[in-house]
Structure formats: structure tokens, C-alpha cells
């Protein structure tokens, strides 16, 4: 698998055939900086400001102590100690998002390959079916899942009907949170892998079989390396947004399996501590960035060692 983060080689011949003026990029770039860069800068700045004595918000006074408070807890008995609570929440976020990424990957590869090997008219229909969940709000769909998993809901009734007498409890457990995440992110894994697989020339696979390769060998040596860009895109589209999930732990986990977004939301809401919520967000950004960089370095090394 490779992850190539380098930009395509740029040429300064903007008037060459098939190229358009670079000025066309001005509006999208302005929009992106407005909606991506500026909010991030605001969060970064807020994380170093003090809190007002009344209500929420920030006051323009430098205060770096929020970062200290992530790691050091002033206990109610007056002692100070190393604080594992936020680290545990961050760990939860990585764990749940990681499990989700692996599970969606395992589910998505066969689905994507299967769709890609149908005839073109069927493919259109199948891709349309994959995107069908987007027609309804994620909130509504998550409510539907609570109805499905509830012990008094569909699955609970089936369990009772087939003679299960024990306590049927999936909803409001970490399992429910992860199931919800897998459900939510599955299309984001299928679609990029499919778009890679669709371009894959399956005659290569046939050639592999002709030369005596087994099924698994063809899959791992021929197919997967070809669809790797799609897999990497899928992993990025699932893992990184997965870290910031709010709804699934809140609704399906019964509020008991906090991920980092839930803690940030509480700090921006009830706790009225915007700088601390911002500091937690910045920390999450930094950790995500480091993880992404490590992944890409590993991918490049592997690419280099192969070639």
C-alpha cells in the first residue's frame, strides 16, 4: 500500500491544451481558507486565551494553563496528580475509530470488487444503492439503529422469540457505538475502493490465473496493489473523521463511552470552558497529524524498498 502525499508535478504552462487559468482556483481556495483554515486558527488562538469571569467565551489575555490541565488534575482532596481521564478518552477515540477502519475495510473490499466486476449498467445501480443512506439524515438513521438494537426493539424481540432468556443488552454499550460507527462510515470506504477497482483491468487477474496463481495470490499480489490508492483514500476518509465522532457514542453508547468530541462539546456547552475545549481539539489535531505523517513515511519507505 502506498500513500503519496506529494502534489502532482506542476508545470507553469497554464495555457497548455487541457489546462485552465490558475485564477480559477482563487474562489475555491478562498472558500477553503475561510471554512477550514480560519476556524482552525480561531480554535488554536482560543486555546491560549483566558476565560471570562461570567458566562462563556474568551477574554484576550494569554493563558497557556489549559494544556497543563489536560495532563495534571487538581483533585478535590487538594492534591495534584497525573490526569489519565482525557488520555483515556483520546485512547477511546483512536481505538473505536481504528476498529471501525479495519471492520469497514474488511467489509468494503469484497463489496467494491464485486460491484466493479458487474456489467456497467448494474454498477450504476449498485453504486446508487451504496449512497442511499445519505438520503436520510444521520440523526434519523442513528435513531433507527437504537430501535433496532434496543432490548425491546427488533433484535430483542427476535432474541426472545428464538428462546433467548438472558439479558439482551447491546444498546448503550461500546459494541453499539462501534456498530454505529461501522454503519455510518461503510459507504466512505466502499466508494473510493470501488472507484479504484473500477479502473482496474481485470484481464490482469485472468492473466494471473492463466499463469497458475491461486485466488489468494491473485488478490494479494495483483488486485490489492492496484486498488491501494482507493484503500488509502478510504482509510483516511474513515479513520480521521471517525476520531471526531460525536453522535454514535452519545446516542448508541448511552453517553457512557465518551470520545473526544463529547468532551469538547461539554466544555463548549455546560462547562462554559471554551479555551479548554479548544486545547483538547488542538491536541487531537496534533496527534492526528503525527499519526498521518507516520503512516505516510511508512508508506514511502515501503515504496522505496520495493522499487
Amino acid at each position: 500500500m502506498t500513500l503519496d502525499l506529494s502534489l502532482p508535478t506542476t508545470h507553469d504552462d497554464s495555457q497548455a491544451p487541457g489546462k485552465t487559468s490558475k485564477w480559477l482556483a482563487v474562489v475555491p481556495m478562498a472558500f477553503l481558507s475561510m471554512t477550514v483554515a480560519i476556524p482552525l486558527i480561531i480554535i488554536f488562538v482560543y486555546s491560549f486565551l483566558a476565560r471570562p469571569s461570567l458566562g462563556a467565551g474568551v477574554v484576550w489575555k494569554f493563558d497557556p494553563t489549559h494544556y497543563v490541565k489536560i495532563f495534571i488534575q487538581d483533585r478535590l482532596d487538594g492534591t495534584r496528580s497525573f490526569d489519565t481521564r482525557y488520555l483515556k478518552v483520546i485512547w477511546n477515540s483512536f481505538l473505536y475509530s481504528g476498529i471501525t477502519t479495519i471492520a469497514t475495510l474488511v467489509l468494503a473490499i469484497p463489496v467494491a470488487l464485486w460491484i466493479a466486476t458487474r456489467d456497467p449498467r448494474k454498477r450504476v445501480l449498485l453504486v446508487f444503492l451504496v449512497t442511499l443512506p445519505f438520503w436520510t439524515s444521520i440523526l434519523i438513521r442513528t435513531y433507527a439503529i437504537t430501535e433496532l438494537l434496543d432490548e425491546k426493539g427488533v433484535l430483542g424481540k427476535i432474541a426472545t422469540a428464538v428462546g433467548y432468556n438472558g439479558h439482551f443488552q447491546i444498546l448503550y454499550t461500546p459494541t453499539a457505538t462501534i456498530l454505529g460507527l461501522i454503519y455510518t462510515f461503510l459507504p466512505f470506504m466502499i466508494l473510493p475502493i470501488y472507484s479504484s477497482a473500477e479502473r482496474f483491468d481485470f484481464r490482469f487477474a485472468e492473466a494471473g490465473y492463466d499463469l497458475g496463481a491461486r485466488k489468494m495470490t491473485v488478490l494479494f499480489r495483483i488486485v490489492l496493489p492496484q486498488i491501494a490508492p482507493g484503500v488509502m483514500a478510504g482509510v483516511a476518509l474513515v479513520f480521521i473523521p471517525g476520531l471526531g465522532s460525536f453522535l454514535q457514542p452519545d446516542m448508541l453508547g448511552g453517553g457512557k463511552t465518551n470520545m473526544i468530541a463529547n468532551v469538547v462539546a461539554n466544555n463548549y456547552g455546560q462547562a462554559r470552558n471554551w479555551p479548554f475545549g479548544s486545547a483538547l481539539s488542538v491536541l487531537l489535531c496534533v496527534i492526528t497529524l503525527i499519526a498521518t505523517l507516520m503512516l505516510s513515511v511508512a508508506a514511502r519507505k515501503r515504496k522505496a524498498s520495493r522499487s
Partner: protein
Amino acid sequence: MKFFTPKVGMAIALAAAVSLGLSACSSSSSTTSASSSTEFPTAKGGELNLYNWTNYIDPAQLKAFTAETGIKVNLDTFDSNETLLAKLQAGATGYDVIVPSDYMVAQMVTLGLLEKVDVASFPNGKNIDPNFMDVYWDKGRQYTAPYMYGTTGIGVNMKDPIASKITSWKDFFAAAKGTSVDVLKDQTEVVSAALRATGVAAADLCTEDKSKYAAAQKLLDTFKPKVINSDGGIERMVKESSMVRMAWNGSVHRMTVDNPNIKYVFPSEGLNFWADNLAIAKGAKNLDNAKIFINWMLDPKQGAVATNFTGYANAVLGSGPFMDEAIKNDPAINTTPENAKLATPTPNCSTAARDLYTEVFTSWTSSQ
């Protein structure tokens, strides 16, 4: 805050048996025409810009106001106190009457965002329930008139042997060991209930004494609810997925409608109430019309119309006879005076005390 979100159709415990009893003397007070005060303005038409919570006033009631006074009402809506504050602080001038909750009134008075109009001296000012006269956010009702209010207590299913015995917050926290308990995802409610359960008086709920919070945290360490969530609680209680829930009285009324086994408990240590208020924004262009509107809303009949629409209680004396039977006959609604006394305003603490709430709540949620 979800807690302050008005929910349409929610009926509520009306507390104040007072307001049901003393109707004869005040129900005759009329709207603007019978103004006893010479200074009080009379309606001369024009406009009124009302900025209210979503779905929090009956459109028919506004039409009736226009029909009676000739004043046209323009309604705009918001979804949280913070949204309202942000608009006003950003310099929005288009609003005359606004509807902030208790703690937000206190904040807006401090920030100088409200007109001081002495609501108590309005012709219908005498209809304000005495229990709502000297509230912390507006002593003597200088700035605001009461609108709707509600409490946060305990919904219990009487079929469950443990749930049916709950009479206090102490019982509530202990019940999670034997039955399914839901709790609001609300740090103020959870921590203040734990403080009450460990013996802290209502007046001390904003204490900065860490040992009090340590005791509350010790109690919460043993409290493992089934769900920590502010949404979907009505459905879970109705279908008996959960047998106990920390809940707003309005939501318990709705549970009762679909499942008569459910009952609202006023915990013996006391419980929090929130209250929304009609206020006039500083520099309101239609000041006289705003006064006329607030006075009109303090008429017992109008208080009842508001309750019938929102499902929440009002603090207008004499509104009882005009209320829908369904709301009046709910056992949670005919609150005894003893129960009404248990309710105290939701604590609006200093930043230092609020941080202690956050500390306890964070430790608790991360230990689940």
C-alpha cells in the same frame, strides 16, 4: 443547554396550588383598556418585534393580541440562551420583547442589555405569583415578567419494586444497582442532585468547598446508570426499557399519557427549576408596545393560553380555571404546596464552582 429548550406539547407540573386557588379576585383584570395606572401606555397600533424560543407561543394568541390592540407582532425565533445573548451583544436592534431564561436574565442585567421598566408596577403586575416575585435573577421584577417554568425531578415506573419506592435523590442514585436508571446528560443537574443527596442545602449548591464535591463524587462513583442522555428518554420510559429517569416534569407528563404506570417524584432533598421570562431589550424601538404586550401576557386568561399551548406551567395567578383539563388533572400538575416548596432555581454558579461541577462530572463520565 438542552435543559432550557421548550418542547411543544409538554405539559408540566404547575406547582403553586396558589395559582389554582386564588382566581376569583384577579381573573377580572382585563387587558390594556382597564389600565389603572395613568402612566401605563395605551395601544395606538404600530408594531412589536418578538424574539422567542422556537414553538414557544401560540400563533393564535398573537393574532388575538393584534385583534385586541391593533399592534402587529413580528415573530423571530432562537434555539438557545447563548444564541439570544450573542445576537444582542452583536448589536441587534430589531427586537423589542425577548425571552431569556433565569441565569441569562442575571447575565443580561449585568451586561446592561435590558430595559428597566418595573414590571411589578404594571396593571397586571399584581398577577405575578409571589413565589416568582423575588427571584435571584430579577429581585422585585424590575426588568422581567415570568413566562413558563418547569422542574427536574424523577420519573418512576410504579410496576418496578425498586423504582416505586424512590422518594429522594439518595434513593435515585442507589436504584441503579437494582434496576435500569436513565439520567440527563447535564452536569448541573447530575452534580447538583448528588450534592443534594449528600446533604448540601439548596442555598449552598454553588459552594466552593471542595470537600462537599468530594462527597458528591464518592456517591457518583457508585452510580452506574443505563443511559446518560437527554434525548429519547420519554420513549425509553414508555416502553419500559428504563424504569427510572431523571426528567423534566413536562416530559414525565408525556410519559404518563402513554404509560399510566409512570409517576413524577419530587425528591425530598429538593429539586431544580428553570424559568423563562419576558423582557424588553435595551433601546427597543417599540417600548410602549412591548410594555403593553408583557402586561397583556400577565392576564390570567393569556397565561392559561400559553400553558395550554406550550404544556409548561405559568406563574400568573388565577390562570388555573382557563387551563385544559388534561393539564390540570395530571397528578404532577396539582402540586401540593409542600412539593412546590422543594423547587429552587437551577444553581447559577461562579466560574470556580462551575469548574468543580465540571471536575466531578468529568470524573464520573470517564469512570463509566
